[in-house]
């Protein structure tokens, strides 16, 4: 028996390492394929501009003249002029910037600026990211508190459940984001500017997912569990603290993830109508005004990283909390 135990424990270690590899390898391969496809796509996307510039510099390309090339297929051009493929990856305003260009821009506007001591200059993505982040987090906090409050009300009041719940669900089918510009402009006109209007949009967007998720969570205990507390003649508040709230935790974290993602989208869209001054949304808009594609992509990746970090933090909190509560192993 002892032999078997040793064999199985060493086998367990080996399978553990293999399991991690099984999870990581496919993701790495898929990401690598996506990046590869991105590079390949850059060639036809940018070939016309590359050929025009090369011709201007005196090179002979096939066929000559930008006009002749205008209506030709990009793939055909790329095949006919494969010598210029390299030029498609390093243009200043490419239609599709190559991954390394975006990486370079990201570094220049973040780490590079930190090294120069200009971390919070107006050209730094850290600065713009911070503006967006603060609106997102503030709005998320407001929306989550309000959403949990409404959920508690709905679970404990029959009339609130009947009157409000259908509207809370219906509101999720409505493109609330469409009113973002109006909220910003109206609040500006009555003197509320800066962080708060954006935060309110974020709050509004995260409010409903959190409320609906929490109602589900607070109602997740089954009849047997509720009946058990009834046999102890537990009060409503005791039932809430000892049963409903703990059972709602998995739902709470899941809806917070959704709410956080919605908050970030709200903050970014909220930055669009303010005349493109500050924030990642403003960077996107300014980039599209001036055709600075590399800047757009860098802002986009900054937003993606921000979203991943914010959702990741909630995921971490979720794992820690649920582990402490014994809900996951």
């Amino acid at each position: 028996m002892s032999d078997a135990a040793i064999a199985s424990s060493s086998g367990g270690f080996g399978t553990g390492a293999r399991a991690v590899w099984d999870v990581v390898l496919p993701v790495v391969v898929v990401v690598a394929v996506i990046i590869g496809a991105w590079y390949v796509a850059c060639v036809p996307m940018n070939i016309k501009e590359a050929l025009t510039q090369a011709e201007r510099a005196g090179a002979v390309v096939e066929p000559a003249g930008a006009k002749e090339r205008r209506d030709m297929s990009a793939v055909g051009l790329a095949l006919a002029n494969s010598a210029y493929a390299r030029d498609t990856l390093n243009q200043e305003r490419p239609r599709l910037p190559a991954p390394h260009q975006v990486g370079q821009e990201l570094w220049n506007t973040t780490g590079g600026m930190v090294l120069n001591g200009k971390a919070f200059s107006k050209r730094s993505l850290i600065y713009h990211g911070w503006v967006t982040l603060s609106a997102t987090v503030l709005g998320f906090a407001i929306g989550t508190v309000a959403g949990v409050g409404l959920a508690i009300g709905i679970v404990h009041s029959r009339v609130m459940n009947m009157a409000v719940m259908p509207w809370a669900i219906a509101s999720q089918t409505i493109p609330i984001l469409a009113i973002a510009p109006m909220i910003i402009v109206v609040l500006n006109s009555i003197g509320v500017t800066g962080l708060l209007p954006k935060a309110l949009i974020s709050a509004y967007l995260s409010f409903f997912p959190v409320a609906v998720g929490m109602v589900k969570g607070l109602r997740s205990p089954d009849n047997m569990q509720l009946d058990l507390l009834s046999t102890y003649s537990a009060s409503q508040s005791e039932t809430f603290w000892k049963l409903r709230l703990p059972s709602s935790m998995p739902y709470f974290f899941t809806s917070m993830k959704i709410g956080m993602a919605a908050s970030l989208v709200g903050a970014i869209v909220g930055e669009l109508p303010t005349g493109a001054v500050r924030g990642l949304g403003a960077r996107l808009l300014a980039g599209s005004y001036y055709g600075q594609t590399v800047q757009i992509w860098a802002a986009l990746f900054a937003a993606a990283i921000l979203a991943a970090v914010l959702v990741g933090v909630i995921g971490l909190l979720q794992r820690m909390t649920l582990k402490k509560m014994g809900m996951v192993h």
Partner: protein
Amino acid sequence: MAPLDEERMNGVAQDPVIVAEKLDLTFQTNDGAVQALRDVNLTINKGDFVSFIGPSGCGKTTFLRVAAALEHPTGGTLSVNGMTPDEARQQRAYGYVFQAAGLYPWRTIAKNIKLPLEIMGYSKESQQEHLERVLKLVDLEGFGEKFPWQLSGGMQQRASIARALAFDADILLMDEPFGALDEIVRDHLNEQLLALWERTGKTIGFVTHSIPEAVYLSTRIVVMSPRPGRITDVIESTLPRERPLDIRDTPEFLEIAHRVREGLRAGHAYDD
């Protein structure tokens, strides 16, 4: 097929259908290797009703799954009608009934029973013909247009037996088909199953946890034991083919049940 038919006409009883020789099966799990079957030798003859009984982990379900080619042995051989289990599956040699009915909730009872017929390419008329016949066989006439979730658990399990019977396989493999049902429904279905076996002359392999069920139904009872999964005893039933429910109170019945219990104990089946 011709020689088989001839033998059936001659009424030859000793006609092997499932033959296992030195069957071994080892699963690789995260906790190391598990011997689900070791050195299993067994012959099931045509028209037999063979029950497999033993505690969990004794390999009784695994044996059935090997016969159905749902698992593949790591040693030894098992043949079905003289073919490998994979070939036998292609010949539609057996119907399989699982622990739960496993009916598709998006199909009516009739469509569920027709499922294997659709897959095997039966014509529309022939599908309908088979459907009507097996619905009568399991006493579910008039329920064809119901959805599974509108029926009781016992009726669902009867529908799943009808599904296994629909394509005229000569072998019926049943893996604890009545395990999830209550005692009263179970008695009723046992009675019906015996009548069905009597009428159709099928060969049945039947996995169960229940000693009375095994004794009541079977012509032979295979007692198995875990770690490693193996056969510890094979008991031939002396009961007549005609078995009313109250046969279970006869001394003969109790004698066989006693032997099965002894066999289970001898295999240290309930040690830990």
